[in-house]
């Protein structure tokens, strides 16, 4: 019986459509016969549908078909497939994809944005090309100097490496200790080392004449042990280029860069390099560094020599003494009577051995320090101090343009980074918004 069903609201539409199963249909009819409430609703629904079905169709305005035909013929060619600019909501066929996709496609097809995008692209290209041409043109723009040194970033501000520009007020430290020393430099160094070593044994001689050494000159013919340090302060138009040129100078003379750093602080740029070059080339290197770049100016130049002859000789003598002592101790150890005595001898042997090694390390350090002089170079940007070098209006305009372009570039990079950082959140927000829109649209436009 239908009593168990309760009211039959949920079946009424299907009952009306005649899509219920036979048994269900009969059950609904029985309930309707017994329940005035449901009967009234069923009658109302049937009346509504009946009213809809019997709605008299309105006549379209007279001449409708003719008007359509006129408009079609006004479209021009009678090809059925002619693109109609206003048409956007026409489904290709069934089933059409997601409504969002079709709407997007319709928006894209609506046009108007096409020419704008093309114009923008042309404009961007023109600006870019102008920047390339202006910054690439040879001339005083690149304040300074390639100076014949094959530098990848010779001279142009636009060419300054991106890491250089990005470093902003930070600092860039290039540590190229001996490990990073190019092979050619290493060979040259060891070559020089061999040459020095050739007279080193002779340097262990009575230290008398070493006391008189006071001159700061090239390789000491008397075999004095001198550790020499050159200092050079320069103002250069282009710190970056001079920095690389200095590296090249050191390498050319068989030296290497022990330590280097470039600081950029606003418009000011500074570089400090510690070069190691064979001692006998120190003066040549200093001279070449002085002529590093066309606009370079040497502000200070000095060479210090530290005479370590006496310490060196002392150390050698002590090592020899210790070695003799070591030999005696070994002999003792081989003849030691009991274990305790042996242990004491061994302990002494260890101490002597340690001292020898320490002294030998010191000697090796001196050897290298004497063989390779140190050159400390301090480069400071002269060109950057006066940001408005004299020039024609054209030059200044060009520089200003290139500078603006560079700033725009870094702004663009920053924007890209920002967008990348926001993208995950934006995707989430977009997803939520899309779902919400879809839901709303579905409710409003279904």
């Amino acid at each position, binding site marked *: 019986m239908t009593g168990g069903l309760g009211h039959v609201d949920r079946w009424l*539409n299907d009952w*009306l*459509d*005649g899509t219920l199963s*036979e048994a269900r*249909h009969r059950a609904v009819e029985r309930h309707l*016969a017994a329940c*005035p409430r449901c*009967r*009234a*609703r*069923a*009658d*109302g*629904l*049937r*009346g*509504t*549908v*009946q*009213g*809809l*079905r*019997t*709605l*008299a*169709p*309105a*006549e*379209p*305005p007279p001449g*409708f*078909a003719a*008007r*359509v*035909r006129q*408009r*079609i*013929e006004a*479209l021009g060619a*009678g090809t*059925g*497939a002619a*693109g*109609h600019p*206003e*048409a*956007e*909501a*026409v*489904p*290709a*066929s*069934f*089933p*059409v994809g997601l409504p969002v996709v079709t709407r997007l496609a319709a928006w894209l097809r609506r046009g108007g944005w096409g020419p704008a995008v093309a114009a923008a692209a042309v404009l961007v290209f023109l600006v870019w090309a102008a920047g390339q041409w202006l910054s690439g043109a040879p001339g005083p723009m690149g304040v300074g100097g390639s100076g014949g040194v094959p530098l990848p970033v010779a001279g142009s501000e636009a060419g300054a490496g991106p890491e250089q520009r990005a470093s902003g007020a930070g600092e860039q430290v290039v540590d190229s200790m001996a490990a990073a020393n190019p092979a050619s430099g290493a060979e040259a160094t060891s070559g020089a080392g061999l040459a020095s070593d050739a007279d080193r044994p002779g340097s262990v001689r009575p230290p008398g004449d070493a006391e008189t050494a006071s001159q700061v000159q090239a390789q000491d013919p008397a075999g004095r042990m001198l550790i020499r340090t050159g200092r050079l302060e320069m103002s250069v138009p282009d710190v970056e280029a001079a920095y690389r040129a200095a590296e090249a100078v050191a390498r050319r003379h068989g030296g290497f860069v022990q330590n280097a750093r470039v600081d950029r602080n606003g418009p000011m740029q500074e570089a400090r390099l510690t070069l190691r070059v064979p001692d006998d080339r120190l003066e040549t290197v200093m001279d070449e560094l002085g002529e590093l770049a066309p606009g370079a100016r040497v502000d200070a130049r000095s060479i210090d020599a530290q005479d370590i002859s006496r310490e060196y000789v002392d150390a050698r003598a002590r090592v020899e003494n210790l070695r003799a002592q070591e030999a005696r101790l070994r002999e003792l150890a081989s003849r030691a009577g009991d274990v305790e005595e042996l242990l004491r001898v061994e302990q002494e042997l260890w101490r002597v051995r340690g001292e020898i090694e320490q002294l030998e390390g010191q000697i090796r350090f001196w050897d290298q320090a004497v063989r390779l002089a140190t050159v400390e170079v301090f480069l400071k940007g002269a060109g950057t101090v006066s940001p408005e070098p004299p020039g024609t209006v054209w030059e200044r305009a060009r520089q200003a343009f290139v500078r603006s372009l560079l700033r725009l570039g870094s702004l663009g990079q920053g924007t890209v980074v920002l967008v990348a950082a926001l993208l995950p959140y934006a995707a989430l927000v977009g997803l939520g918004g899309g779902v919400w829109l879809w839901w709303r649209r*579905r409710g*409003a*436009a*279904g």
Partner: protein
Amino acid sequence: MPHREGGRPQPAPDPAGHEPAREEVLVERARAGDVEAFTALVERYEVPVYNLCLQLVGQPADAADVAQEVFLRVYTHLARFRGDARFRTWLYRVAVNTCRDELRRRSRRPAPAAAPPSGRHRGGDAGDGGSGDPVRAVLAREAGAEVQAALGRLPEPFRAAVVLRDVHGLSYQEVAAVLGVATGTAKSRVHRGRVLLRDMLAAAGWLPGRGEGGETP
């Protein structure tokens, strides 16, 4: 009587038989650029399309413009009609989309549909069984305008579904295809729309069904 689909009047002049074949021929010729054939299609469908637009958009003047737009779109996109659906379904889909565009453009609720020029309602002539039912007799004579007005107040998704199903006599599958939704969705929209309409008409005093019992089953 489980199946009562058959007795419904067909607004579209689409009797079974050789007509679909002729329609296919017309579509094919129109697609090839034959304006005559397309005009024949327009004449065949102008009444249902115009009425659909009128029922969805609301105002006769707008409905005429929208209906013209529908046929223009159909003409310019005939090449895209692949024939894997009935032409009428496709045409209705274009019409529904165009009407939605129009409504979106105006972005306001359409005014309730004005009574059509041929305002007389086709009385109780549709022999849908039970011709002696006084409620339906009253409805048939007087409720046409009220039904139109209530349709205008129906929310759009339900209005489109109900109009397609009950006024234009599409099957649920066709309604689903036209609306671009699943068949179940189409069905539930039709059912919900009918119930909403019934409640509106009952609230206006045109129908029983909101509690007070009627006498006849």
